């Protein structure tokens, strides 16, 4: 095996919707830069992140969730350049992984979440909710793989991706992958890509809400799903505000 990790291209399944021009600038050290997190048996750890800037960003995180432990991750990805958050999770017996992610923005940036959740042992559960709001020429992606090992009975895994495109020219891609080797499991995935509800928009206008206010309310309702699992605390409000502030930059 070569000492250098191969630089991925868009021919690699896990990178198929990535920004090819940015991939060409990646170096092995950036690719090898995995942050690792170990969560001890029975413990709960929550990570909240706001990622993205004017420069491309790659965030790679590997989480080992021990027996009966719980990993929670909530992310707003609103970079102005290619921004990728990649999460690999291994769930031990009865462990849980909760993921709430929002990609939001305009310009011509690609913003993506890539998750691989390994239900390695029985009775683990996982729930992933991703919401994507884009305009301009921007692209929002979600690639989610769920692996259920042969003896990981009673696995309960779900992922749900929904995207709205506020303008023609924006796009969204999703690639759910389920690899199930056990037989007593529940795995659900759903995906939908659409536009803001025009009926709701007119209803709001008919009550006096200017388009930008109506849009903000509708987008707020849409992305809030990703943070519902946080409960009503200051942290979820902060993430929601951060995501909605991005919308304020849109000249629609």
């Amino acid at each position, binding site marked *: 095996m070569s000492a250098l990790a191969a630089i991925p291209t868009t021919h690699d399944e896990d990178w198929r919707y990535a920004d090819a021009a940015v991939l060409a600038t990646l170096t092995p050290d950036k690719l090898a830069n995995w942050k690792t997190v170990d969560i001890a048996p029975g413990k709960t750890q929550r990570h909240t992140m706001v990622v993205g800037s004017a420069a491309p960003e790659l965030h790679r995180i590997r989480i080992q969730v021990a027996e009966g432990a719980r990993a929670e991750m909530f992310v707003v990805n609103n970079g102005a350049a290619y921004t990728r958050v990649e999460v690999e999770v291994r769930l031990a017996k009865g462990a849980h992984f909760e993921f709430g992610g929002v990609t939001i923005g305009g310009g011509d940036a690609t913003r993506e979440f890539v998750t691989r959740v390994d239900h390695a042992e029985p009775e683990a559960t996982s729930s992933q909710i991703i919401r994507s709001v884009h305009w301009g020429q921007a692209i929002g992606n979600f690639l989610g793989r769920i692996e259920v090992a042969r003896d990981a009975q009673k696995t309960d895994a779900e992922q749900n991706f929904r995207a709205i495109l506020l303008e023609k020219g924006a796009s969204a891609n999703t690639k759910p992958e389920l690899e199930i080797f056990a037989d007593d499991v529940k795995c659900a995935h759903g995906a939908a890509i659409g536009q803001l509800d025009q009926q709701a928009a007119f209803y709001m206008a008919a*009550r006096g809400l200017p388009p930008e206010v109506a849009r903000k309310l509708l987008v707020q309702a849409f992305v809030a799903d990703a943070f519902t699992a946080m409960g009503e605390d200051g942290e979820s409000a902060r993430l929601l505000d951060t995501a909605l502030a991005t919308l304020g930059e849109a000249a629609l």
Partner: protein
Amino acid sequence: MLKIENLHATVADKPILKGLSLTIKAGQIHAIMGPNGAGKSTLSYVLGGRPGYEVTQGSVTFDGQDLLALDPHERAAAGLFLGFQYPVEIPGVSNVQFLREAANSQRKQRGEAELSGGDFLKLAKEKAGLLRMDMEMLKRNVNVGFSGGEKKRAEMVQMGILDPKLAILDETDSGLDIDALRIVGDGINAIMRKPDKAVLLITHYQRLLDYVKPDVVHVLADGRIVKSGGPELALELEREGYEAVVA
């Protein structure tokens, strides 16, 4: 208050309104009745400014302004309220948040001071009480999980809070049982029967008019007002049917 002259409108290039004229004065309640497909709902959407409803000819003056030149949210701020035949569900947005934003957006557009949270809740509570609606329902998402009758009562609570000059109520009576019909009728009277306000009721049936007595009744057929009269016209329509009266 409202003057519609020779209004022509199309939906998806199909002519629906074909020269409709109508004048409503302050203090009046008018009812428009007519068979399915006559253009009743189209009239309400054209006045509300719904995208896809194209005015091809004619004019509408509301309170001295060219209504058709205003965007839908500006029409609302100018004092026009459109009661929907099918109120829209908005998951994730509570009635309280929606209506507070709506009331304050209208106030802002009119250059008035915005309502504080406390003042808004007081107002909402009063208007909900008028329609016998529990405040708990207003904390729920807009129209989500509401029955047909609850949606119509919620529309009237919205009307009470927004306090328009002119309400166009599109089949507000549909989906209401007898008790709810009385509550909604009483609500319309309490909120809108005032010398400086007016109502245009769009309805299929006479029954709402038992509670909200119209000053003028119009029959709409094939995109035009074909007959106007007093409240007795509604009774005649109910008794003899549209075909007999219009012929």
